[in-house]
C-alpha cells in the first residue's frame, strides 16, 4: 500500500516518540489561533465528517473549529439528527457517509471499540473523539500538552487523577499518555470506581486522597458522571466531596505550584470546590484552548501531513 490510512483510535499503542510528534505538531499549530486570519489551507478540499452520536458540545465544537481552521469542509451529524435514532446501525450510517467520500470521520459514540468497528469497514481515516469508557485520545493529548506548557516537561512529574476511573475514557487516555511520557501517575477514587488491574495501564491506584495528592505536580479531577452510572458507586455527593473532592485544604497537600485540571464540564461542589476551580492554580480554560491545536494536529496527521507515519 502506497498511502496507508492513518487512524487515531487510541493512544495505548503509541510510543513516546509518536506522542511527542503529535504534541510538537499541536504546538506548531497553536499560533494560528492567535492570528487575525485564523486559517491555513492545509486540508483545503478535504471533507471531515463529525459523527457525534453522543451528546457533546465542547469536543464537537473544538473539532469543528480545528477542521475549519485547516480549511477542510465539515459536516456535523449529531445524535438527535442522525438516522441512528431511527434504527439504522452504526455501520450503515457510516457506509452512507462513505458514499459521499469523506477523508476523515471523527466519531463520538457511547460504545467502546466503535471506532475500531468503523476502521475495519470504512475507507476514511477514523479519529476517535471518545468511545464509551475506552479512550478519548485527543483529550489525553491536550492534557499532556497543557501540562508540558506549564511545567516545561512531563517526565518526573507526579500526576494525581481523582474520580470515577472505572467509567472514564479520559482517565485511560491520560494514564497511558502521561505514563509513556515519563510521569508518575496515581489514580484515586473509592474502590467501586477503581477497575480491576488498572495498574497494568501504567499507574498506581489508591483510595486515599492524601496519598494521591501529596506532593503532586498536577491534580486532575474527573467529572462524576451520574448520567453514565448504572449502579450506585458511592452513597452521597456529600460523602464523596468530603473524601474525594478537591477543596483548598486538600490542594494544600500538593506542591505549592501544583496545577489543577478538569476535562469539564465540572460539577461545582462535588468533585471540585468553586474556589479551587476558579483559583490561581486552575488551568481548566487553557485545556479548552489547547484542544483546538491538538485536534488540528490530529486531523493534519491523519490526512497524511507531517513527517512521521
Amino acid at each position, binding site marked *: 500500500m502506497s498511502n496507508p490510512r492513518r487512524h487515531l483510535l487510541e493512544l495505548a499503542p503509541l510510543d513516546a516518540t509518536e506522542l511527542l510528534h503529535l504534541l510538537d505538531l499541536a504546538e506548531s499549530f497553536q499560533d494560528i489561533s492567535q492570528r487575525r486570519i485564523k486559517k491555513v489551507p492545509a486540508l483545503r478540499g478535504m471533507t471531515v465528517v463529525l459523527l457525534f452520536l453522543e451528546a457533546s458540545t465542547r469536543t464537537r465544537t473544538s473539532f469543528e473549529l480545528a477542521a475549519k481552521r485547516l480549511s477542510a469542509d465539515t459536516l456535523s451529524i449529531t445524535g438527535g439528527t442522525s438516522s441512528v435514532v431511527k434504527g439504522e*446501525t452504526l455501520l450503515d450510517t457510516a457506509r452512507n457517509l462513505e458514499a459521499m467520500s469523506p477523508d476523515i470521520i471523527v466519531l463520538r459514540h457511547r460504545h*467502546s471499540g466503535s471506532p475500531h468497528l468503523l476502521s475495519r469497514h470504512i475507507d476514511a481515516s477514523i479519529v476517535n473523539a471518545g468511545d464509551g*469508557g*475506552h479512550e478519548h485520545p485527543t483529550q489525553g493529548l491536550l492534557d499532556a500538552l497543557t501540562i508540558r506548557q506549564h511545567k516545561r516537561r512531563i517526565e518526573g512529574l507526579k500526576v494525581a487523577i481523582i474520580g470515577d476511573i*472505572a467509567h472514564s475514557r479520559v482517565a*485511560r487516555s491520560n494514564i497511558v499518555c502521561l505514563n509513556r511520557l515519563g510521569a508518575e501517575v496515581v489514580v484515586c477514587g473509592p474502590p467501586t470506581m477503581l477497575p*480491576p*488491574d488498572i495498574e497494568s*495501564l501504567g499507574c498506581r491506584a489508591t483510595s486515599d486522597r492524601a496519598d494521591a495528592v501529596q506532593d503532586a505536580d498536577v491534580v486532575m479531577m474527573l467529572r462524576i458522571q451520574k448520567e453514565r452510572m*448504572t449502579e450506585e458507586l458511592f452513597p452521597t455527593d456529600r460523602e464523596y466531596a468530603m473524601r474525594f473532592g478537591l477543596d483548598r485544604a486538600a490542594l494544600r497537600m500538593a506542591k505549592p505550584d501544583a496545577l489543577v485540571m478538569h476535562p469539564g464540564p465540572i460539577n461545582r461542589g462535588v468533585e471540585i470546590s468553586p474556589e479551587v476551580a476558579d483559583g490561581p492554580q486552575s488551568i481548566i480554560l487553557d485545556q479548552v484552548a489547547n484542544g483546538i491545536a491538538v485536534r488540528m494536529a490530529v486531523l493534519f496527521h491523519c490526512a497524511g501531513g507531517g513527517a512521521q507515519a
Partner: protein
Amino acid sequence: MSTRLIIRGGRLLCPATGLDLRGNVVVMGSSIALITAESVAALEGDLIIDATDCIVCPGFVDLHAHFCEPGEEHKEDLESGGRAAVRGGFTSVVTGSQTTPSVDSRAVVEHLVRRSAAVSACRVLPMGALTRAREGRRLSEMYDLRDGGAVCLGDGDLSVSDPALLRRAMQYARSVGLPVFEHPEDLSLAAHGVMHEGGVSTRLGLVGSPAVAEEIVVLRDLALCAETGVRLHLGPVSALGAVEAIRRAKADGLPVTCAVTAAHLHFTDDLIAAAYGPNLRSRPPFRSSLHRDALRRAVAEGTIDAITSGHRPQSAVEKDVEFDLAEPGLIGLQTALGQTLQLVDLGHLTLIDALARLVVGPNVVLGRRPGRLAAGEVADLVIFDPNVRQRVEVDAEGSRARNTPLLGQVLPGRVRCTLVNGRRVFETQDLDGASA
C-alpha cells in the same frame, strides 16, 4: 438381507471400553454386526469405507447447542443445525430450551422430536424448560415434557434466580428422573457485563462480568443439589472457582456433572483487545489464561465431564455491530473436534480422554449408557482423520451461521464419515463408499 457396510483398516477407539484396535467394523442395518482385527471378505453388494489413517469411534454427543427453531430460523434450523452436527462428528445433540416459544410444553417437545426425525441428520435430544416460559416463576410440566421426549430440564442460557423456586424445581425434577441443567450465571452480578471482568476489560473500557457471578450460582446450586439429591449439570462453566467447587462436590459424592465448550478451552479475554471482534463475545465470557488453564486441567482430570460445542448461531444482524451491542455466542459444532484435538496436540489431554469427553461424559450427564464399539450396539459412528489439518472456512453445506473467530485458522482433524443409526449421514467427497 440389508446391505453390509464394511469400515476397513481404521484405528478402532472406544473410550467407554478402552478398546484400541486396528481392524474392521461391519455394520448391518442400524447396528454394529462385528468388530474384528481379522480381514473381512467383501461380498457382492457390500459397501466399503476405507478408514486407513482414520480413527473410528462412537459418535459424539453434544450437550449445549442451539438450533434456533422455532423462532429464529434465520440463524439456524433443525436441518442446517443437524448438517453442522454430523459434519463435526456429532451424532446426538441436546438442543437448548431457549427457543421462541420456549420448550416448556409437551407440544413443543413433540414438535421438535417429530420434525427433527424428518429433517435433522443427527439425533436431536430436546432440553425441556425447568420453568414456564423460562421466566423462573412457575414450574413447567416436567413429567409431560419427559414423556414427550425431553432428556433434561433447564432454562437454557438462564439460571433460575429465585433459590426457593429452584429448590422446589429440583425436588420435583428428582422424581421425574431427569437431570437439571443450570447455566451458572447470576444476572445481578453479571449485570451489563459483555466480557470477563479483569485487566483487559479495564483497558478496553468494556463492562466486565466477574468470575464470581458464575461461582456464586455454582455454590448455591451445589448446596441445593446436596439437599435435594437431584442430578445437577452445570454448564458451560468458565471460572476457576466454579471447577474447584465442583471438584470438591464430586469428592463429597454429590450427583453433579459439568461441561465446558471447546472454545473456552482455548480463547482468552485478551483476544478481544486486538479489534473488539464481536465473535469473541460469548456467554459465559472468555476469561483470563488463569481460568482457561484451570479449565484445561479440570478436563484432563475428569472434573469436567464433557466438552461441548456451545454452538450458538447468530446472523450478521446480531454481530456486525458495536461489541457491547452484539448478541453473545459463536458456532462450534464443526470446530469442536478440531479444538479438542488441538488440546491433544498441545499435550493437555490424551486422545482417549479427549474422546471420552465427547462420547462417554455427555452420556453420563444424561444418565444414558455411552455408545460402544461392540457387536449389537447402535451404529452411531464417526470416522475421522486426526492427522489432516484443515482451514476453517464458511461451509455452505453446514451451519447457516458464520459467527466464529476461527474462520481462516487451521485446526487438526477432519471428519471423513458420520453414521447415525447405520446410515451414512455425512461423507467427504473423496471418500465415496465403493461398491464391491
